[in-house]
């Protein structure tokens, strides 16, 4: 808390003086663009709007792509992303970096919000199982980093045993519950649960092996 602008070494990044926290303390932080995802989320927990903007810049596109794939409707997808980021804004104090990567934490909100919305919509339409998820489309821009992350995950997915991949894709992208899945695939619930479990464990191992870094 004792750092001042004068402490910045020549050539170092400028410190941005944020509004004083109540109680008279001042928060000094590096420009949010320089923060790790985790530090960024912690800045969001300090109600730093610039940090929220930066968080959106890093994950907004992935969030929207995910919501769109689940909801298959642009307006609903926007709603899901907006609500999820507001939940992040309200709940960031609950984030702990030793328990989860920031990207995982944020995208969990987006996913849950999208799944809740798609279930509500399907109940309204009387279509409990929903349409099969569409395959992921190509990205609209040339974000090389994002594309390589996409490719790594897609590649890892393709290396799962087909029944595990199917259970994971239908659940995660299709928004189906385990019971709906059991019914659709005509398998006992226990089988579905174990496919999900083995599939996710395997996926985790494959991603670690491929050096996947969501940050």
């Amino acid at each position, binding site marked *: 808390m004792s750092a001042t602008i004068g402490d910045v070494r020549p050539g170092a990044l400028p410190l941005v003086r944020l509004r004083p926290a109540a109680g008279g303390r001042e928060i000094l932080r590096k420009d949010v663009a320089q923060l790790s995802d985790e530090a960024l989320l912690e800045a969001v927990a*300090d109600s730093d709007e610039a940090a929220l903007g930066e968080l959106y810049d890093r994950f907004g596109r992935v969030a*929207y792509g995910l919501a769109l794939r689940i909801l298959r409707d642009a307006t609903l997808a926007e709603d899901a992303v907006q609500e999820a980021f507001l939940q992040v804004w*309200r709940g960031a104090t*609950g984030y702990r970096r030793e328990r989860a990567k920031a990207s*995982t934490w944020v995208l969990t*909100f987006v996913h849950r919000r999208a799944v809740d919305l798609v279930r509500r919509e399907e109940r309204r339409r009387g279509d409990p199982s929903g349409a099969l998820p569409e395959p992921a489309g190509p990205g609209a821009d040339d974000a090389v980093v994002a594309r390589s992350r996409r490719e790594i995950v897609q590649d890892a997915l393709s290396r799962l045993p087909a029944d595990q991949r199917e259970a994971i894709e239908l659940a995660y992208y299709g928004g189906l519950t385990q019971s709906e899945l059991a019914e659709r695939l005509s398998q006992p619930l226990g089988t579905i649960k174990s496919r999900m479990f083995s599939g996710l464990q395997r996926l985790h191992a494959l991603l670690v092996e491929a050096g996947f870094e969501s940050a």
Partner: protein
Amino acid sequence: MSSDLHELAAPYALDALDADERERFERHLAECERCSAQLAELQEAAGALAFAAEGPEPPPSLRGRILESARAESSGKVVAFPPHRWALPAVATIAAVAACVAIGLGIWAGSLSHSLDRERSAKAGYARAFELLGGGAQVKALAGGEGALLVAPGGGKAALVVCGLSPAPAGRTYEAWVIEDKTPRPAGLFRGGGGCPPVLLEREVPAGATVAVTLERKGGAQRPTGSILFHSAAV
């Protein structure tokens, strides 16, 4: 039953549980270290799946809308707690607390004298409560005490975070009540003490209700007999 619950970690990570199953698993998760550890890995794998779905750019207006709503919330939703008012006759045993904590949007404001330990403890208490209830939990200030009532988004499940409460004296227990239409219903017993531990209520808190805490005989009561030590704002 509990082995069934362990098996819900993967479907939970994939959001493939219905609302009841999700709630049951979250209650279990609060008590099962093994599941928490396992879930972290499963959730990381599930979270990575989001990257495979990446598609078109979101409309440019979305960013502005998010920031605008966040700003609107900050101005209206920050919860500032009153200085402690523990010195009620019925609560002579309850320790005085020097810290004054404000949360809601992650703002930790306080007198300059408040200790880092207390802040850490409060932060851990809230973090745990948010974990139990989901990040979007509503936060309601407590009157007469330091802490907050947190209510899960979209429904009823709630936790109290109370800081600096002395352990209940021998033979007594703290009891939480959900008060709806002036009718108090028992919502769980707790011991108090130990920083700011979250207390998951055993009864849902419907819209319009408040939560209050009294000191009761060990084993609890069906109707409050002690006076209200502190209570939340209406949900």
